[in-house]
């Protein structure tokens, strides 16, 4: 019923849009430079440097998606959370499993027969310091090589043709609580990788390795002195609060930056024109904010850096002195948007997204802006000027109680003081929960609809701050958490967001968090998966469901699409429940304890009734 209601709203919106189409053609035509000509491949999990996850393939369309069927399947042999993207280069598909991180090369000309596999044999002990299931988010291809990270902190380079190991470099230490789960990005013959472990008080970093030798070229820490953070004369943040010497030290209690988190476990995007990479930093450690007074820089923010030197260009902090583990690692999608000039945007307080004044202003003062779009864990969709780090807009995409908006003059989020954690006190109804409005699961963006497709959860929590003791290699948290559906709604949603009009266009509520990634295509079809195990195709313009298929287990992976050797368009996704949200199933947790899985178990008590562990790749095509 909820869905039908939303459909009505979305149809209404569409009618309005149609009526104003001429105007819109001028003002929201948007978009970015099209990603380079479509070659039918999918060589990196985010599809392209811009992280749009948009494919220009259009064989699968709104009117034929209902005919999709399974072309072939492949068991990964590992029954943990399958968060990786199956990538495609030529007639080969590559995928990496959760721990023990087996890398498979599959033959697309032979229904996925194994060409070769590589077993990196990560240390078993690494499983004990992985906060949120033993996931891996994928591998990346560049110039004949495959790069991926292992849970025990090794970066591996393989010959894509043979699977032969070219080099393997250890970049972190599991005994300190460091693991690696993220997808590397390759820019200018450098593999960029970051660590996980914000729940263990590790010190976050982004590291560049030479693709040919595996040698470390530079490392930029997320806490500590400017010299460690590669902050120098080029650093020109937009806001006053990010300016000053050694803020990575001064915004912490003495020495605490050394165990301060800010890990880099999310996504990296790259603007070739500006020669800038963008990536987010994770939560500060410990979770309990009372134990670390200060802004805790440079955690929970976004860095723009030169990929060649690592030197920071600007930084913006989503959550200064983060209170609820709202990591800032969401993908920063690179698009050029036709939106209101900066003067207009900054004059309108956030949250006021229905303002007629704003709409009018848009129609008169719109201009093409080079922006980043990011749906953040704290529940806001941000639009930032990617050359300066200025926040152009920040609007809630779920119900938020933890904060009251973002002050566009100072750039600072306005925390709700009623929800400020205090040791020994249980704060009720904090929204979003620590898992955020959106967690790791990446959005897609279509230049045809100018919409951002957000797979996300809708959870609030009770939060009790407690003491935390730092013991190397053990969790450093200081919080008891219990999550539940936010504001009485459903626990998940898949929605389309208009970044120009700053509003949700349509939404599909889901019973469980939508913990999968998504993709958009030129056939105006988007895809995502549910934790029950349904893989779904949706009309990108209206949100109308077009097709679904029940896979063997819950889906938490990233779908990809590609042109097969036979010239047909395929869609691939891994099925296999897990990750933080699915750990109740993949790690056999006991949901009688609401605080299990860092409090996520309470919201997922019924998941074991609808799905069981799995690990299977599904590849779909039209008949």
């Amino acid at each position, binding site marked *: 019923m909820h869905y039908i209601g939303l459909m009505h709203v979305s149809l209404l919106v569409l009618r309005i849009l149609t009526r104003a189409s001429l105007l819109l053609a001028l003002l929201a035509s948007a978009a970015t430079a099209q990603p380079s000509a479509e070659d039918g491949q999918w060589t990196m999990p985010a599809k392209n440097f811009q992280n749009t996850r948009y494919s220009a393939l259009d064989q699968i369309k709104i009117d034929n998606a209902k005919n999709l069927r399974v072309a072939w399947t492949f068991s990964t042999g590992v029954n943990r959370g399958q968060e990786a993207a199956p990538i495609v280069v030529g007639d080969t598909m590559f995928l990496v499993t959760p721990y023990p991180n087996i890398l498979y090369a599959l033959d697309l000309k032979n229904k996925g027969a194994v060409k070769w596999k590589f077993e990196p044999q990560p240390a078993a002990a690494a499983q004990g310091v992985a906060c949120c299931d033993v996931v891996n988010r994928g591998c990346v291809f560049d110039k004949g090589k495959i790069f991926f990270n292992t849970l025990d902190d090794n970066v591996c380079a393989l010959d894509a043709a043979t699977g032969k190991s070219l080099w393997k470099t250890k970049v972190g230490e599991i005994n300190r609580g460091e693991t690696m789960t993220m997808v590397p990005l390759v820019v200018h013959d450098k593999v960029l990788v970051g660590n996980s472990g914000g729940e263990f008080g590790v010190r976050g970093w982004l590291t560049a390795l030479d693709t040919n030798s595996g040698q470390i070229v530079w490392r930029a820490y997320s806490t500590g002195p400017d010299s460690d953070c590669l902050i120098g004369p080029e650093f020109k943040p937009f806001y006053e609060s990010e300016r000053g010497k050694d803020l990575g030290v001064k915004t912490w209690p003495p020495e605490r930056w050394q165990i301060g988190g800010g890990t880099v476990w999310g996504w990296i995007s790259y603007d070739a024109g500006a020669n800038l990479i963008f990536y987010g930093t994770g939560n500060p450690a410990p979770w309990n904010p009372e134990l670390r007074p200060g802004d805790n820089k440079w955690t929970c923010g976004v860095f723009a850096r030169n990929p060649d030197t690592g030197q920071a260009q600007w930084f913006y902090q989503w959550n200064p002195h983060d209170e609820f583990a709202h990591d800032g690692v969401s993908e920063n999608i690179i698009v050029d948007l036709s939106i209101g000039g900066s003067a207009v945007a900054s004059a309108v307080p956030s949250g006021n997204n229905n303002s007629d004044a704003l709409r009018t202003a848009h129609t008169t003062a719109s201009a093409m802006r080079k922006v980043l779009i990011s749906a953040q864990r704290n529940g806001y969709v941000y639009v930032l000027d990617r050359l300066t780090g200025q926040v152009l807009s920040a609007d809630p995409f779920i119900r938020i109680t933890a904060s009251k908006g973002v002050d566009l003059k100072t750039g600072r989020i306005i925390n709700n003081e009623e929800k400020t954690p205090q040791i020994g006190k249980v704060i009720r109804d904090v929204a979003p929960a620590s898992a955020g409005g959106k967690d790791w699961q990446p959005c897609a963006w279509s230049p045809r609809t100018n919409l951002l497709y957000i797979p996300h959860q809708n959870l609030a929590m009770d939060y009790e701050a407690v003491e935390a003791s730092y013991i190397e290699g053990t969790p450093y948290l200081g919080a*008891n958490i219990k999550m539940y559906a936010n504001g009485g709604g459903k626990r998940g949603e898949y929605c389309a967001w208009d970044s120009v009009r700053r509003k949700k266009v349509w939404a599909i509520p889901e019973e469980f968090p939508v913990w999968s990634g998504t993709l958009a295509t030129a056939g105006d079809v988007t895809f995502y998966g549910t934790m029950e195990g349904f893989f779904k195709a949706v009309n990108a313009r209206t949100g109308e469901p077009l097709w679904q298929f029940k896979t063997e287990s819950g889906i938490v992976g990233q779908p990809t699409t590609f042109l097969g050797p036979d010239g047909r368009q395929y869609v691939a996704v891994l099925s296999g429940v897990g990750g933080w949200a699915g750990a109740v199933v993949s790690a056999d947790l006991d949901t009688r304890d609401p605080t299990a899985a*860092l409090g996520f178990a309470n919201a997922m008590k019924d998941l074991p009734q609808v799905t069981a562990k799995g690990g299977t790749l599904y590849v779909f095509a039209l008949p």
Partner: protein
Amino acid sequence: MLMLMSCKREERALVTQSPSLEMQRSRYEVNVASNGESARIKTWFDRNSWSMAQGKQLYDAYNCVGCHAHGGGGMGPPLMDEKWIYGSEPQQIYGSIVYGRPNGMPSFHGKIPDSQVWPIVAYVRSMSGLADQSAANPRDDHMKGPLPPSSVPESTPHEVSLPESAEQPR
């Protein structure tokens, strides 16, 4: 020699009030000296509510709670169910804590004094109803978690093995 010493101390253990560190240490020594004594040790710690209350505090202080939550698990396996990967006997749990286990349980050797390990063992056993319920903690001091150990029905532990995919001995 150790056996003799332990036996001598064993006599002092008849005192029924809060155990001193010295006394707890003696329990430990008996245990490592002779598995034959383990039944008596189990009885002693599993019935001592002071020790179990201590164990609960220590369980938080040494960050056990970070991985195992309040028994439901997370990064580590649940402790409140009847499945025991490395055994439910006190000395087996002691071994898991002190020496660690290959699939992620770190060794707390040198981090937790032995005199504090046994109370943690007793508290862990109480989560699944393996300890004497009249001695188990009757309430939780924090945000409402699982049922307090004193209300947990007794369970029968059973051994499980990890899936093949998780076994990567080095």
